């Protein structure tokens, strides 16, 4: 079976900075694939490239066999109806209630009656445990609740591909456990292909079928969670074991510390 997402020789620059330098990866259909790496390596940018919100400089990105960068604006919006993306912030519409947020894609993309939409929204909210919060507004929710509502909205149209942008960041252990469970359930029940972008090793490794690790714009390792935990590459090892310094330096590039201190003294 063809891979759901296929990226080949992707390069992408932001200004003078190279974000991706010839990345190739495949996301098999129906699997949970994690894309991991230190902060600032462009993991979220990769999701935006897959979603067509950014265009690569070179290389191909195919989703369901369709070349995303070559689609017209109208075709791109049509393809996105089969994708879902859970943003790190949740990105709920703040001027409407939880119920209306989840109902939004159904009202825009379908001609279902309000009664049916109501039933579908309540089913989705029940699945994330927030049916009781249907009448609340996003400002009244906690961070974990926002992400659960956003997940209910993302799965409202039953997309075949869901991208999760840092789904565990900033959550308490209980909320994190709930989100881990929900991602697993959505994948199993709907047969959805899931891409998780994260740097939370434990949670991600517990649900991912396959992991890619990206650093400095390149793919530095890939394999099953077990393979990654015992990976030989020093870069992968540093990331997986959470070591503060190593091939991925602790310090941002700068001139010698002593030189800089003396320079300051000389100029004052």
């Amino acid at each position: 079976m063809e891979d759901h997402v296929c990226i080949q020789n992707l390069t992408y620059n932001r200004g003078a900075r190279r974000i991706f330098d010839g990345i190739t990866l495949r996301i098999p259909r129906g699997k949970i694939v994690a894309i991991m790496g230190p902060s600032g390596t462009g993991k979220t940018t990769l999701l935006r490239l897959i979603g067509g919100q950014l265009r690569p400089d070179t290389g191909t990105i195919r989703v369901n066999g369709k070349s995303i960068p070559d689609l017209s604006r109208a075709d791109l919006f049509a393809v996105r109806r089969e994708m879902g993306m859970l943003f790190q912030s949740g990105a709920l519409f703040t001027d409407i209630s939880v119920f209306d947020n989840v109902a939004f894609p159904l009202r825009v993309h379908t001609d279902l009656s309000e009664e049916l939409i109501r039933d579908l929204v309540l089913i989705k909210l029940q699945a994330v445990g927030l049916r009781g919060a249907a009448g609340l507004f996003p400002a009244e929710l906690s961070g974990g609740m926002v992400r659960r509502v956003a997940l209910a909205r993302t799965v409202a149209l039953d997309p075949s591909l869901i991208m999760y942008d840092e789904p565990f960041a900033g959550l308490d252990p209980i909320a994190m456990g709930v989100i881990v469970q929900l991602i697993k359930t959505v994948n199993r029940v709907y047969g959805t292909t899931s891409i998780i972008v994260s740097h939370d090793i434990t949670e991600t490794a517990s649900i991912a079928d396959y992991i890619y690790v990206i650093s400095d714009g390149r793919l530095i390792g890939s394999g099953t969670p077990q393979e990654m935990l015992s990976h030989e590459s020093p870069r992968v090892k540093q990331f997986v074991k959470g070591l503060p310094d190593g091939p991925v330096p602790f310090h941002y590039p700068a001139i010698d510390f002593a030189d800089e201190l003396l320079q300051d003294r000389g100029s004052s």
Partner: protein
Amino acid sequence: MVSYFRQLGQFLIELISVVGRAGAVWWQAIWRKPELKNAGLVVRQIYQLGVLSVVIIVLSGFSIGAVLALQGYNQLVKYGSESALGLGVALVLVMEIGPVVSALLYAGRAGSAVTAEIGLMRATEQLSSMEMLGVDPLQRIVSPRLWAGFIVMPILALMFSIVGIWGASLIGVNWLGVHEGAFWSSMQEGVDFYSHVMKGIIKSVVFGIIVIWIAVFQGYDAQPTSEGIAAATTRTVVYSSVAVLVLDFFLTLVMFNF
């Protein structure tokens, strides 16, 4: 010298880039007009941009009409021409002050709100999430505001002028004692619908287009930070105000055959 030319070049490139982006947003949004089933989006924006601006328009219109009556009477009475007060106030309001001042107020009240709202939606990834839900923000967010903006501006300008004339009549006729018949008949005889009122309406339509265009573009193009939104909101008010005043000069030049 080289650095001067480099800075000039950078400025021109940035200017062309901004005008190009603004043109693209305008073009794409205007042709993605909301479908009939989403007419409610435009109606909601008419309420947000128009109805919520009525109080400031009415209060300002009344005050300016009243002041025009006071100042106009002061000058006209010296020549015994106070009966022309109604005509003078009406012409000034309908052709100039009504469209211009209501557009400036509209830029400050509604334009800044539109920029801040769209800018904040960008900063909180609401526009991105809308895109990923397969909904085009240009059609869903920008287009209803553009269309509502065109519709409400001439109505607000007319309202401003009507309330201004009413304010002038209260001051001129009821307080300063200008003959009521002379006040209204001079206005009736001297103000022509096509030569004066219509030209004022055309001005307000042009001002409405330019103000709401600047407002939605500044919001859509804002840096997604608190400083970025603050700067975009300021730019909306400043650029809109300057554009309205400069355009008023050229429209007057063209429409009144100078």
